């Protein structure tokens, strides 16, 4: 079955490389993930980080409450998401060997999926 193509002024459309399309989808997910974590830290920080810390100080795990929920927890989430993304979402594909560079092993680990 023919895949997506890129139109060209000079003749037949170009059949797009499935690896390129896969990489583009992965890049889109990365930007969306960044956006979600940005929204979390920014909105939580806007609501709580500027509150004066007077009287009895409320800490969670030794840090101010807003740092724990607004920075530390999203940071842990981002780290787990990065690990999960790299392990389960990102796909392997073969990388072209470059003639004359002696990198025969370059494509060995990158054949078709995992």
């Amino acid at each position, binding site marked *: 079955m023919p895949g997506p193509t890129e139109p060209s002024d000079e003749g037949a459309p170009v059949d797009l490389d499935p690896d390129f399309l896969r990489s583009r989808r992965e890049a889109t997910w990365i930007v969306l993930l960044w956006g979600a974590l940005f929204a979390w830290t920014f909105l939580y920080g806007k609501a709580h980080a*500027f509150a004066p810390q007077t009287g009895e100080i409320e800490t969670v795990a030794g840090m101010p409450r807003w740092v724990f929920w607004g920075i530390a927890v999203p940071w842990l989430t981002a780290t787990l998401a990065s690990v999960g993304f790299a392990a389960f979402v990102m*796909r392997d594909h073969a990388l072209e060997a470059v003639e004359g560079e002696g*990198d025969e092993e370059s494509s060995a680990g990158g054949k078709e999926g995992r």
Partner: protein
Amino acid sequence: MTSALGAFGIYLAGVFVLAWWSNRLSAAGSGGFVSEYFLGRRNFGMWAFALTFAATNASGGTFIGFPALIYSHGWSLAWWIASFMMVPLVGMGLLGKRLNSVARRARAVTIPEMIEERFGSRAVGSLATWIVIVFMFFYLLAQFKAGAKILSTLLADVPAFQQAVGWIAGAADGVPLIGAADPAYLLCLVAFAASVIAYVVYGGFRAVVWTDVMQGFVMFAGVVIMLGFALSQAGGLGNATRQLAEATPPEFATARLAWDAPAERDRVIRRGTWLPHGDTAVKLTADAMVAAGAVEAAVPALALTSAGDVRRVTITPAEEWPAGLRVAALEEIERYKAGAGQPGTYLSAPGPHRSEAAGFLPLTAAFSLFVFWAFGATGQPANMVRLMAFKDTPTLRRSIVTVAIYYSVIYFSLVVVFCCARVLLPGMENDPDRIMPEFAAHLTAAAGWPWLAGLLLAAPFAAVMSSVDSYLLMVSSSLVRDVYQRRLKPDASEKTLRRLAHGATALIGAAAFLAILDPPDRLQDIIIFASGGIAGCLLVPMVLALYWPRMNAAGMVAGMLGGFAAHAALTCAGYLETKQFKAGELLGIDAFVWDIIFSAAAIAVASITAPPPRAIIARFFGRPPA
């Protein structure tokens, strides 16, 4: 200090052993010299790729400037640096696979070469080459200075070093160019520059990568050890946070000193001396020169303002003073514009600030920085060239995991460590850049392991070295590969290229050394200009070049120039407003954000011209031949 110096010496010896080993590996491999010297034949595995990426991103700022900011402004720095939670995934995952694949299809060794092939245009390649050379050279200067400063801090109390400084001062006196330089700084700059240039010239990219690996481990170990010591000595993080809540920013003032009888001889009351004054403590922030016969002196000083801070400082023993020395009065008192007299200011945003009434981190700055750290790192050519060097995609995936964990530990731990430093070592606000070496010495001495200070101080030194070597090679690769080999002499022999690569690397290092002999006061502003500027020029054009087949040469040029124009215009506006070399913040938002907006807009306009040739689209986006 001698044992600390020994630990530091072992670290340096390790760097040279790795460079030697890398050179042997290079000689044993097959393939062209240029590809090996500038890209290590793109066959790096997980540890090499992950740690060279991580270490290159951690520069002198990570271990000198960032700790100084945490110390000065408290917990709000956790928000300031929060975008690093996404740097591994965005910086490696967004461009990694595509950049590596396109570079292989282009058979490119450098970023400008890849851009030239992708668009089939020498003009586009030339523009990228000069952008890389100019901006990277600024980076190089800043890191040379940071390396020399760290070394001079480490060696300051070593008698042999002081003797050598005296000898250098005599030898350099009257010599053009170097005669005016501070002799201690000069000696350290010579040592730092010579060692970095030597191992980069000798081992090329492979040596840079493997020394980065070692430096990455040193940084990690340094931070983890400091974290353990700091938490232990502060009585736990909760205790440190509660004590930090009681702290208030110090006041800067002129201390009028007086003593009982006229001084019998000229003498100096040293900078750093702590004196009692009522219920507070005052630290002299400059040497007080006392002339024979004088009974008083005026000297710049810092006064603590919270009882907890006063309890923790050690008043300098009275035998070091003129008899009856006291602080008669504090005059010309300067209070912080944000946070003065407010307990809790170190725990919340925007954090205290000496000169800005809006505080350290207003909301717009938090917004800008979350964009800047993640995407600014992605747009750095030193990172991009590393993305061209991993051997396969499993390596990329494992490296993302490794760097994600590595950065989480390093950056969040640094925030914790230097919040503890503000509690345990108050009164460093007059020279916060010294907090890293001072706190390392304080922690290890208190723990009874002073030799460990050498390893802890090796961490910032390693961070600087791992950045300098990368920038040095970036600039020389652009000159040798992009300018000489591709423009002037495509048929140059391997022998010629080898000599030229070694010569260019040494020459650029020497030029940076000479240019930074007399470092400008506001060098940090130039670094920010260079880092924001190059990412603003390259980020959006590179992303679209890799993911949008319709992107053409006109769009690439417009994107790079659009980003540059926005950055230059905002820098000019900033200079007119503040008289400092600092980009203006339109609507309070950092220049980098505007750079990428203007860059994207310029690409959108320019790309309405003809699409790229079919052959280009097929080569870089089409199915590979079966």
